[in-house]
């Protein structure tokens, strides 16, 4: 279930970081979409989405991230992803999205 799904935001560094924990699926992806849309609407055209604590991710989640990336780039910024877990990275690889996103191995790297 999605009891452990959580989104937190950190504006402390040069690039704001939205951290997600738990499973991003058809049930939880709308929450992430709303948070990312709100951030872009409030002026954050460049941000990082930290997926280090994500345990499952489906094509609904990919769609949300691609939509957010598009909005960031239209606003002149970028959306970086933080991924270390091979199982999560695999989903981006098999869909060809590693060529689309800037993927970093750590939050520090994404903030540079």
């Amino acid at each position, binding site marked *: 279930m999605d009891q452990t799904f959580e989104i937190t935001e950190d504006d402390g560094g040069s690039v704001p970081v939205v951290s997600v924990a738990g499973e991003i699926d058809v049930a939880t992806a709308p929450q992430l979409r709303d948070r990312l849309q709100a951030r872009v609407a409030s002026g954050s055209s460049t941000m990082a989405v930290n997926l280090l604590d994500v345990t499952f991710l489906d094509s609904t989640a*990919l769609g949300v991230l691609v939509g957010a990336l598009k909005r960031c780039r239209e606003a002149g910024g970028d959306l970086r992803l933080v991924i270390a877990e091979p199982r999560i990275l695999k989903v981006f690889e*098999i869909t060809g999205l590693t060529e689309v996103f800037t993927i970093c191995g750590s939050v520090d790297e994404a903030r540079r």
Partner: protein
Amino acid sequence: MSGNGSMPPAAGGDVVELTIPVKADLVVLARLTAATVASRAGFGVEEIEDLRLAVEELCLSLVGADDNGRLRFAYRRTDDAVTITCTFEPEGTGNQEARTGDELSLRILDALVDEHGRNGDGREATAWLRKRRARSTL
């Protein structure tokens, strides 16, 4: 590798059936069942994770979060494979139809399972997949 659309042969094995309403927060039950059946079939951890994601994409290839109806699953465990069929049964008499699957879902299915396919269009459709156990775990 995509299937040609014909149903997989229903030959032998143990079958577990699950029916859920089309509700976003219940699709996790389809994943949990897939993981349990694959585990009991001797699949490795990575294969189980592949199957969890694949069954999710199977659902998403048929329905969206706003659809109404039921999803009926059959999980068949045989000596060397797990075969999962998912049938969307719409509720009501409206024009609601099964979806045709988006590109991301189909790419994921292509990469994670040995065969997949689909039967039927319109109001009721069935999508299926088959994943064979890796030789090292046979």
